[in-house]
């Protein structure tokens, strides 16, 4: 069956500060229950333990809030997108806002997500030279991989970053870093690498995912 024949909706939503500590699995259960409360005609898998057919784009790391979350959900019949948006929104806990719902047609696949833009705010315990780290070509960190800890150049994962001072020892980073199933960097790792680089302690860290990008190959 082709994608189009299935009734799949792509739902875009935000996760605010209050729900950023929810793990991915817990979030899935929360969404399930929201669909149930909204009495949506979601489609269930066959089998002994039926579950709803949903797919979440790039699970947000714990501790990160987001303005650009997406999920695909299969329904048994077509729905009015505005109604879907409104009813699902009403059934969600207050930290989750539904921005839009659209019938999925030729939307890119979540598998083709390649990077994401993050806005990061933090306070340093000592003044830092804001763009020194930005300009580095190479900074080696320990990164967890499937086969244990590995030394990597973190800058290989950073497509662009721009750090500015926004207050007394308060800084702001706008960064696009690798994200997705091919190559992924958690934004908190970038922050801790920076802290190490500057020999400072960062606190009051706030990370917001602003945008998701797909690889060139998917844009045909």
């Amino acid at each position, binding site marked *: 069956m082709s994608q189009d024949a299935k009734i799949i909706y792509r739902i875009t939503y935000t996760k605010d500060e*209050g*729900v950023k*500590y*929810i*793990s991915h699995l*817990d*979030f899935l*259960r*929360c969404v*399930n*229950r*929201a*669909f*149930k*409360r909204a009495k949506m005609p979601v489609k269930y898998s066959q089998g*002994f333990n039926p579950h709803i057919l949903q797919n979440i784009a790039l699970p947000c790391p*714990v*501790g990160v809030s987001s303005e650009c979350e997406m999920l695909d959900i299969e329904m048994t019949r077509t729905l009015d997108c505005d109604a879907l948006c409104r009813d699902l929104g009403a*059934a*969600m*806990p*207050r*930290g989750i806002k539904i921005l839009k719902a659209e019938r999925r047609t030729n939307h890119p696949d979540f598998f083709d997500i390649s990077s994401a833009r993050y806005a990061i705010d933090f306070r340093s315990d000592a003044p830092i030279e804001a763009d020194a780290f930005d300009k580095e070509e190479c900074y080696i960190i320990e990164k967890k991989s499937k086969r244990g800890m590995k030394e990597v150049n973190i800058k290989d994962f950073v497509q662009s970053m721009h750090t500015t001072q926004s207050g007394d020892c308060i800084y702001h980073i706008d960064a696009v870093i690798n994200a997705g199933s091919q190559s992924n960097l958690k934004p*908190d790792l970038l922050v801790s690498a920076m802290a190490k680089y500057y020999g400072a302690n960062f*606190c*009051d*860290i706030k990370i917001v995912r602003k945008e998701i990008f797909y690889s060139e190959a998917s844009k045909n």
Partner: protein
Amino acid sequence: MLRQQIENILPFVEKPARYTGGELNSVVKNADDVDIRFAFCFADVYEVGMSHLGMKILYSLMNERPDIWCERVFAPWIDMEDEMRKADIPLYALESMDAIKDFDFIGFTLQYEMCYTNIINMLDLAKVPLLSAERGESDPFVCMGGPCAYSAEALADFADFYILGEGEEVNLEVMDAYKDWKKEGGSRFDFLKKISAIEGVYVPSFYDISYNADGTVMAIKPKYDFVPAKVRKRIIKNLDSVYYPDKFVVPFIEIVHDRIMLEVFRGCLRGCRFCQAGMIYRPVREKTPATLLDAAQKLIDSTGYEEISLSSLSTSDYSCLKEFTDGLLDMTEKESISLSLPSLRLDSFSMELMEKVQKVRKSSLTFAPEAGSQRMRDVINKNITEEDLLTAAKTAFEGGYSSIKLYFMMGLPFETVEDVCEIAELSKKVVRQYLTTPKEKRAPGLRITTSVASFVPKAFTPFQWAKQDDRETLREKQYALKEAMNDKRVKYNYHEAPVSVLEGVFARGDRRLSKVLMRAHELGVRFDGWSDQFSQEKWDQAFADCGMDIFFYTRARSFDEVLPWDMIDVGVTKEFLISEARKAEQAITTPHCREKCSNCGASCFGGGVCFEPRR
């Protein structure tokens, strides 16, 4: 703002979502719009506390009122506590993330004795003076309720007042009195004086306790003439019309009972003599099927939960069980959610019902004969015969079950080693029952699990005067049982429980134990209910440091001894409890409330099963 400070430590703790609130149906109000801020505390971790039905009820009930904001507080786990102390973050409430020391009330529900040290630790984390006597005009009132509150004298130095019994009415009466008191202006004493006139409110500091030379209580005397000599618990007379929430807070993380719970009735007909719940919740009061089904539908709609369960003491005794479960099964089928049943009695209807509910998967069945020999079952008034058990096992095996769990106790009054060894015999008879079931009928993979807990005598039961077995005696019995249990097909679990001795100490303690609790707290004792945290050494030291003796509290009492909780009236009279204790000694059983009223005293509340027409 605490929020930012809290966020800074959350990356370093397990399960940070325990500490951030924001769940569906949690109630957020504007602090400026309310008159009373109430911190509802459960002295255990989030997953345990959030599973507790009483908290859900009172949380919703209080928040229905626009002038009250009730918020939830749980005990932070060790890792979070360490981070909070390091960062100097006081205990806060989940909804507002405000420090609870600035609230009007801090209320604890006492569900089990082994949470008492957590309560003190939570007050300490909250930066509220630990002792009632040290709290000043700007401090919140600390109150305690729940099933242990009837005999929580050990906490008397910490509690400003207790609320006894079912809270739906009395809690709001106390809140109203608080608003009046605020308007009138007055001291803390004035407020406590005011509420001590409300039935169900017990102010421990208003009573003088004197002691005999042997350490027993000599007399309990009210200090002032406005104080009642006895405080009677509160009940809801008409349970069918009582408030029940149409929403539950739905946690993000999985909790212990992560489902809709319906309270079918309160109380229990049976009167097993070891069972505190069976006495303190008397009399039985039921809800009608219509009320229950209505509540079920509303909760299904508002929570999206995938499972619903029934929460009552002995659910098979519900007089409208068939009508209700038929309706409920229709509903769960329509909504495609599952129904989970509590352990039911061993009768044929219950077996049928289980059959209907567990259409696909046969999980294991649980039976609780509680004692091995018929004599002991008569002693404890557990009206189950060996035949009942074996018939039920037969039905179960023929119905395709192959796994049965059996629950027993040891250390019961009047028990001999022979009685204990009968547990092994009975377990083996269940095995034999399986073997005699025709092969083509029974499912393969027999699994019999026999679990034996140590009995803990509780206040307001016929066994409140009984000696609690010490660890050595229990060990001997346990060893004998292990010997007798020489059958590999029975898996035998014994809960090695030094903790049950302490539980017994606090369940029948007097207020001099407040000192011991304080000392234990200073020694860093908390989370006693978690076996990996429990430290016998620290407790032994706490008792020694205070010059107190554990065995004083586990000893047998005589019927004429003044008991430390004699100022509390749960409805059931001492005369009834004594007559039950005497019958226990002679292994004479007592019929349940619907067979014959035994005039236990609980009819004084003027409602429930006491006034049903008898057959």
